[in-house]
């Protein structure tokens, strides 16, 4: 045993390695009743090797793992496209109210009036924000919102007897868009971005035709730029009888400032975990409600929440519905948080977006001389820089910059996305950051640009202050070890 500063932080055994045969924490109730015998073939033959620990070490284990995790609560987290804003603590209290947390989803509508009213209120606010009248809360995340949207398009065209098989996405689109297109059974076409960062209208006109079902677009785009030709874009699609789908990942830029419905979009998804502060939870949960124009409303997934006078109910009787995309009426706990967030802002939700845009532009202004700026415009809530100048001059990549930021106590931005920008650094500060945190980040980025010139090896070998250094990701993929294997667990040889 040696004492190495920070050693404890670095070494955290697997929960299985903390296990000892015969230890236990939970003691479930055991009624004084005989346990019936099961038919032999149905009975478990090999007991599962769950970890065996008493409670104290379980708590320490997860505490230690939390210590090795960086969240928004830890510090600045400008992960572009992900809107890593502050998650109000009161939401955790509210979602845990017994009337919400312990409500069974098979409850009769009359026993869930509070929950249904909350969902109905949430729908109303979402509709107002999107400028579209009808909302389904069911989709579990943005990606599922996309897929739902594409299914809605199909149902819409089916009823109209139109056969349209192609969806157009931008070359800046998030990977979920093309993936959703395939899952929905559509063909994909791609439209290019012009020199100002808008959709290339000429390219678009050439690609839209009677086989085109619709467009999927993020606006502002993943470049953080509002499409200045959005009105023409909408005209082109609507002119061809096609629909427009709004990927709401970047809605945080425009709440109260510009509405997708007014831009011409027919279907919109929201990411409740981005714009409306459901905590990201290390990967999820999320919420991906979808709003649509009246003409598409009949196809929404069932059930939907409706209001009859003062009474709320789940309407399952939706003959034209595309069907169900998830269990029950959606991730209710996420709705509680999103609704609380909206009610905390009220009409000042507009401030939220304004400050998000202001913060991003401030950081952009302070960094534009040290990094390459591929599109020289004001940005919306995020912006994309390129490290290609550092790469050209010093061999320093976007990844090196990202890793070195960690040593400054800052989470890296999104890197290498969107694909149209080489060595991309996609920076989204969010509105909940105070100016000092923005300045810390700028200072760190400027210091790194200088380090790139003066001591590039420090960057190449960064991070230096995290529990681990850079990982061998090739090995992880080539010799995959995807679970603990107990006695047969492969030894780590380097």
């Amino acid at each position, binding site marked *: 045993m040696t004492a190495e500063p920070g050693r404890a932080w670095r070494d955290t055994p697997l929960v299985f390695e903390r296990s000892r045969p015969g230890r236990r924490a939970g003691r479930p109730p055991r009624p004084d009743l005989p346990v019936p015998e099961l038919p032999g073939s149905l009975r478990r033959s090999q007991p599962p090797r769950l970890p065996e620990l008493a409670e104290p070490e379980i708590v320490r284990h997860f505490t230690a793992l939390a210590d090795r995790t960086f969240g928004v609560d830890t510090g600045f987290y400008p992960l572009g496209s992900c809107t890593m804003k502050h998650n109000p603590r009161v939401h955790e209290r509210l979602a845990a109210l017994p009337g919400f947390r*312990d409500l069974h989803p098979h409850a009769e509508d009359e026993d869930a009036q509070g929950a249904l009213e909350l969902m109905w209120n949430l729908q109303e606010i979402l509709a107002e924000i999107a400028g579209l009248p009808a909302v389904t809360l069911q989709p579990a995340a943005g990606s599922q919102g996309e897929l739902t949207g594409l299914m809605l398009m199909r149902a819409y065209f089916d009823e109209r007897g139109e056969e349209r098989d192609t969806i157009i996405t931008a070359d800046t689109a998030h990977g979920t868009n093309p993936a959703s297109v395939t899952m929905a059974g559509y063909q994909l076409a791609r439209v290019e971005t012009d020199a100002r960062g808008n959709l290339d209208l000429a390219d678009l006109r050439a690609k839209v035709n009677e086989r085109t079902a619709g467009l999927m677009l993020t606006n502002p785009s993943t470049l953080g730029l509002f499409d200045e030709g959005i009105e023409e874009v909408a005209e082109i699609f609507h002119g061809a009888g096609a629909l427009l789908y709004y990927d709401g990942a970047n809605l945080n830029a425009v709440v109260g400032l510009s509405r997708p419905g007014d831009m011409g979009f027919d279907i919109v998804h929201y990411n409740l975990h981005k714009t409306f502060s459901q905590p990201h939870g290390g990967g999820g949960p999320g919420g991906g409600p979808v709003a649509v124009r009246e003409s598409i409303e009949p196809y929404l997934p069932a059930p939907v929440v409706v209001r009859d006078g003062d009474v709320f109910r789940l309407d399952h009787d939706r003959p034209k519905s595309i069907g169900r995309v998830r269990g029950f009426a959606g991730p209710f706990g996420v709705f509680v948080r999103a609704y609380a967030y909206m009610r*905390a802002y009220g009409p000042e939700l507009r401030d939220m977006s304004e400050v998000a845009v202001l913060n991003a532009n*401030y950081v952009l202004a302070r960094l534009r001389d040290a990094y390459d700026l591929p599109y020289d415009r004001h940005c919306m809530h995020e912006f994309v820089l390129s490290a290609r100048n550092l790469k050209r001059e010093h061999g320093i990549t976007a990844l090196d910059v990202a890793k070195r930021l960690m040593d400054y106590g800052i989470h890296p931005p999104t890197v290498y996305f969107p694909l149209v920008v080489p060595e991309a650094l996609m920076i989204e500060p969010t509105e909940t950051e105070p100016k000092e945190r923005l300045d810390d980040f700028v200072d760190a980025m400027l210091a790194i640009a200088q380090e790139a010139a003066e001591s590039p090896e420090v960057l190449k070998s960064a991070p230096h202050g995290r529990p681990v250094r850079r990982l061998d990701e090739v090995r992880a993929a080539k010799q995959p070890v995807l679970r603990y294997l107990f006695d047969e667990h492969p030894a780590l040889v380097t």
Partner: protein
Amino acid sequence: MGYLSLTDADRAEMLAAIGVSSLDELFDQIPPGVRFGRELEVPPALGEAELARHLEELASRNVHTGSELSFVGAGIYDHYVPSVADVVLSRGEFLTAYTPYQPEMSQGTLQAIFEYQTVICELTGMDVSNASGYDGCTVAADACFVARHVSDRRKVVLAETLNPQVRQVVKTYARGFGFEVVELGHRDGVVDPDELGAAASDAAAVFFQQPNFLGCLEDAPALAAAANDAGALSVAHVDLMSLSVLESPGAYGCALAIGEGQSAGNWPSYGGPHYGFLASRSDYVRRMPGRIVGETVDADGRRAYVLTLQTREQHIRREKATSNITTNQTLLALAGLATLSWLGPEGLREVGETCLALSQYARERVPLEPAFDQPVFKEVAFRTPMPARELVRRARERGVNPGYALGRDYEGMEDVLLVAVTEKKTVEDLDRLASVIEEVCA
């Protein structure tokens, strides 16, 4: 607004640094025709105390599991969620981090997911698990998408005893996959292996549930064998809380095991958020949807964890990805990990045995005829002498919610009541159920 930090002085300094005289200039890029010209028509802002009061009022109008003695299950169960789950759910670091794209920043989340994957593999008997799907329904659609890539067949077979919502979601997705969906009826509450084998002969995948939605235990090994023999992927939809007493899908030869994780570590929460799990044999690892964490080493040779096999995923493979999923249900899955670690093998076995014992007791004690003559795990279906919904209504007037009326999903089962227990129920609770049912049927 207490979530925002900029002071007027901050704003002025920042605008100056940007080189604009007002915030509006930043929005010049929004064409005037699509600018929103008025205030949002939404209810006024509430301070935290007012917000809490408003939501407490809404919550108070719901009849939750604490307000009556309830035997409703049917997919969502009132198992005990241990307090160690709070350690996961309340730690700001777990709560406010995102997908661990930068492994050096997220070793905690990554290691926990790796542990979760191991637990899922152990319970299901599979080789590989992903980091979670949305819920027990969408993982079935995901499994179809796996089948679509490993098979040329374009049909999937769903046992009618599979959770109705799961079947609905599969049907919704099937259209995009170009899949025909066939449902297979039950005989006395379970699926017949021969019938299933016949239906599977031109199917890409076959789905069944164990224990099934009617509460019965299927002859799962025979069903899996029938599907496998017919050249279809066999997919078992299972309940994690049963897998210490019921055989694992891996042991009886399934290709994939999926399910709803809620019963292990999540609150009912009116339907979510929960986690769906999806595990498979190693044959299908490169067709798995979603995040997967792997073990590797860092530059110093130190053990470390990282998202791996990412060439399956949408951000790399785009339209050729194995799924479009990105945001998943990690936090809920980790609550599941904490819960299952807390139970351990012994605790989980005891939960299973308590469920078996109590459901058997219910079967004997409740003065109703069991609807099916099959072994059960934690749910028992009974025939009711009046419409089951009517019986439910009457029993609830006496403070007991006796179960789920299966007629909500199954035609011809208007007189079948599905009674669920978990280890939280006691003999006294069941005695009370029995006497209330006796009263309302008298």
